């Protein structure tokens, strides 16, 4: 009996195991090995064992700084917009409309982020929003190809990833707790701060983590809406692998990025424990 159970488990886990081994662990190992190598004379990778690439990491300081600034900023901005929306969807909307409104949140995902980002080029470009602003007397407003444009693109692109985890957490909220609080004379704002917000924290943390991690690797939105002037680690990696073909240094930058993300996830896990959420509640992570 136990043996059959063991076999069944092994069989069921084999596809996922092979998948991760071949497409996650193996490439990671290659990146790690490359990061100790050298750039060959014509570019590409030459075997070696040196810490030179890691010593050279400060050369991409600006890229890390830009990413570490705009990724948290983008996460916070998404959160501030997503929370009221999720609250509205989970608590206030009548069930009749709920499904349709939820679908509307997902609808943008039906089109590629590349095309949606290009659409923002026209909205933020000279013939778009700045032209409207000129009508009311605000002349020569430049929006496109600025960090602000990148922030707008980030929030737009990642908002649904923030809305859903928070929505799920708020949906599960036991409304009787709020009724009890009201019966005992707690004002609504206090009930929100002491009951609703803490109980929705797992969703907030999951959404923030999802958005933050994806933003750390982002390169498309800065390239398209930043006009090549807003340079993320992701853009540095693209250039290192495809333009200057310094694969060894590129690998070291990639490893550094993975390490930063691991530290962030570790901090996140501790934060989750502090809020007393069990692992099951944070299913998405």
């Amino acid at each position, binding site marked *: 009996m136990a043996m059959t159970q063991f076999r069944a488990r092994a069989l069921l886990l084999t596809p996922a195991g092979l998948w991760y081994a071949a497409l996650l662990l193996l490439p990671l190992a290659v990146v790690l090995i490359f990061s100790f190598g050298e*750039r060959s*004379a*014509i*570019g*590409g990778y030459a075997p070696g064992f040196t810490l030179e690439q890691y010593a050279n990491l400060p*050369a*991409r300081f*600006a*890229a890390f700084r*830009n990413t570490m600034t705009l990724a948290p900023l983008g996460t916070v901005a998404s959160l501030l917009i997503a929370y009221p929306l999720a609250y509205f969807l989970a608590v206030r909307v009548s069930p009749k409309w709920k499904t349709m409104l939820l679908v509307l949140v997902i609808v943008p995902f039906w089109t590629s982020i590349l095309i949606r980002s290009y659409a923002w*080029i026209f909205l933020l*470009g*000279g*013939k778009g929003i700045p032209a409207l602003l000129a009508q009311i007397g605000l002349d020569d407003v*430049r929006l*496109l*190809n600025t960090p602000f444009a990148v922030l707008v693109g980030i929030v737009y692109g990642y908002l649904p990833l923030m809305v859903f985890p928070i929505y799920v957490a708020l949906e599960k909220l036991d409304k009787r707790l709020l009724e009890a609080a009201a019966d005992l004379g707690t004002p609504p704002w206090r009930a929100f701060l002491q009951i609703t917000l803490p109980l929705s924290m797992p969703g907030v943390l999951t959404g923030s983590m999802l958005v933050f991690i994806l933003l750390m690797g982002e390169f498309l939105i800065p390239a398209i809406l930043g*006009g*090549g*002037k807003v*340079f993320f680690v992701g*853009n*540095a990696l693209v*250039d*290192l*692998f*495809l*333009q*200057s*073909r*310094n694969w060894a240094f590129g690998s070291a930058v990639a490893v550094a990025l993975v390490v930063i993300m691991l530290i962030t996830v570790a901090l996140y896990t501790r934060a989750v424990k502090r809020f007393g959420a069990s692992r099951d509640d944070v299913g998405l992570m």
Partner: protein
Amino acid sequence: MKNDTKPISRKAFMEELRRYEKGSVTRRHFLGVTGLGTAMAVMGGAMPGLLPTRARAQEIGDRVVLATWPNYHDPANFDAFTDATGAYTQVNVFGSNEEMLAKIQAGGSGWDVFVPTNYAVPTYVEAGLIEPLDLSKIPNYDPAAFDSRFADAGTIDGVVYGVPKNWGTTGIAFNSDKTGGVVDSWKTFFDGARDQFDGRAMVHDYQLTTIGNALVYHGFSFNSVDPAELAQAEKLLIDVKPHLYAISSDYQPAMRNGDAWLTMCWTGDGKQMNSDMPEIGFALGKEGGEIWSDFYAIPKGAPHKEAAYALINFLLDPQVNARESLAHGYPVADSRTNALLPEELLNDPILYPAAEALAPLEFGAAVTLTDPNRAELMARFKSA
């Protein structure tokens, strides 16, 4: 109507045969007007072994994979190639020679034909990534008909690795309605970008041209890898950066909607924008800049090598090549092709600038492709 159904006369047939033998009409045209094509198709229906496409499809395979640059072909020519040979052309578009080289270096690109620029060819040869060409399989390539300035870079140590596709320049496109006149120097370009064109100038997201033209601004060689000269170019670029509209090689949309007023620009893009919007002009930098030549080449290990030769040969057919040029607006170095192009195109100053405008230009040097300092300079410029 009557002529269509009537078989071709003996005299007309012999005339068409002569024209075909001389190469002044394509095989397809010949088969079409003589009715031989129809005859072959009918007979092929009855006796499948006679059907030419099928026979040749076995020879060259059913596909050929081409790695090339954006807006660089007439799609109708690929359809004609499929009609003639049965092989379908799968097109992959790239943004830079560096990117192309990275893909080939990584291995397993699966490409049959690619189009390296002059300065990239030596690196491919050195790394053993490019196939020496068997010219007997490219009868449409007639070295005597090609301007050697644009053909020489394809040959290294007497071995031909690439046959010339097109040539062109990297100059300045400017919207004269906004700039108030011609911008024909890198001095005006970079100084204006910080002054009267603040927030309106674009440079390529490409180390060769962006660094090269900043070097030319200071009077240095477009190809310099001298650290002291590169340091001056870097200072200029970092100083200009906050005033730039964008660092991007995709400059047509911003130029066309008026957000950008001037940009570094390749010949064909300049021609395409000028045709649609006459106020957008194109000029070469007085101080210098880049002149370049692209080549058809075959990477080592091309999976459909016979099809690769067939495609290159097809595209070098002067008739086909002329149609290509009309579509993309880049000049051709082949006198046979130029003989077929309309006079106004040959006199177009964007495509064929005057000799004195071309004189200060430089061909990119192989060292710029692999120099680590230029690559790092570009990264510092972009992240500044």
